């Protein structure tokens, strides 16, 4: 005979009752805060050294009006970045708490896909993986925050963007891919983007979006690097506070 749900509840209740009485105090937490800050301080020093071994790909200054490409990205083209990074010494440490917040995998283009998550991170970044002939658009809480072709990296090709501040409570990420040929030259204009998406008929397309946590402070100076050790995984790096 199996155990019941009530058995499980009682077991969890009972097992967690005989812990230390002192518990965790504010002083304990303060001590841990100091340790974290010291650790981050050391890591920030390492970041300066490491920055010499990676190529800055994303400056994250606001995109120029009318400029095609990823919102918030500027500077050299993604293709240049990968070539440059792969020619550099292998970075052995990737800095950044880049836990995945939520992911979505889809088989249809031309259709807006919605993901939600609750505040638990300060800033997020996106990695949209889609075909090189696809054009991806991402809205965060109603604002178009990223758009462009999936041209970063050899395989799978991707659109990288971040870091964007979240809001308290529920956050909404809406994303879509459309044929790049439909995108036109000024998709950064929100009204135009919405119109083009609305006119795009659904079509078969394998694509996915990964929403990742980025560190809170200084992510405007964020860099995208490639770890040649793994061969393909792009990472977001933010200076640590």
């Amino acid at each position, binding site marked *: *005979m*199996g*155990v*019941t*749900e009530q*058995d*499980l*509840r009682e*077991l*969890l*209740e009972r*097992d*967690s*009752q005989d*812990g*230390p009485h002192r*518990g*965790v*105090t*504010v002083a*304990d*937490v303060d*001590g*841990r*805060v100091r*340790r*974290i800050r010291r650790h981050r301080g050391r890591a920030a020093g390492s970041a300066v050294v490491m920055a010499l071994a990676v190529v800055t790909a994303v400056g994250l200054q606001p995109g120029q009006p009318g400029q095609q490409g990823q919102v918030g990205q500027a500077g050299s083209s993604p293709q240049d970045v990968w070539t440059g990074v792969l020619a550099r010494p292998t970075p052995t440490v990737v800095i950044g708490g880049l*836990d*995945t*917040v*939520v992911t979505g995998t889809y088989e249809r283009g031309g259709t807006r896909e919605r993901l*939600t*998550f*609750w*505040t*638990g991170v*300060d800033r997020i970044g996106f990695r949209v993986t889609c075909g090189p002939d696809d054009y991806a658009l991402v809205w965060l809480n109603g604002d178009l925050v990223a758009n462009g072709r999936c041209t970063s990296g050899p395989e799978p090709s991707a659109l990288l963007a971040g870091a964007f501040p979240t809001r*308290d*409570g*529920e956050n909404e990420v809406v994303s879509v891919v459309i044929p790049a040929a439909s995108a036109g030259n000024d998709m950064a204009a929100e009204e135009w983007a919405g119109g083009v998406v609305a006119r795009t008929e659904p079509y078969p397309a394998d694509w996915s979006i990964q929403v990742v946590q980025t560190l*809170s402070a200084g992510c405007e100076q964020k860099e995208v690097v490639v770890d040649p050790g793994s061969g393909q995984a792009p990472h977001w790096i933010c200076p640590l506070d």
Partner: protein
Amino acid sequence: MRDRADFESYVEQRSARLLRTAYLLCRDWATAEDLVQTALAKAWLAWRRVGANPDPYVYRILTNTHASWWRRRWRDEVPTEDVPDRAAGGGDTGSEIGARDALRAVLVALPAKQRAVIVLRYFEDLPDPVIAGILGCSVPTVRSQASRALAKLRLDPAARAAIEIGG
């Protein structure tokens, strides 16, 4: 705006419960203390941005940190999908204590995410949408993780069906 007094009050009111939750995640009191201190410290560093109810934020840090430590611990080992039989003697011991020990052993052997779902659902009594928000996954994922965990725990099939339907 949230301030220091808010935070201290939160720690005083919630740390005991958080410690119990952390213990159920990691099954070691010293590690649980470490987890809670780390989660609360990270929460303090982001306190001004935490919403009116800090619990989901803190639970999220707690489960993420535990999962991260768990991955680190198991990096060089291969977890198995097979879990030990709950009743080593073929289920004929008739001992409640033995059955609970066996159940406990299976709980400990669950992957971090499945254990987190079980603890948040059956200890914290959180609804699946809230658990999904904490774990950063969809509600169907929470349910599938719970279903897998319950199968390993060999919860009474009728009870399991009721739980899954009731979600």
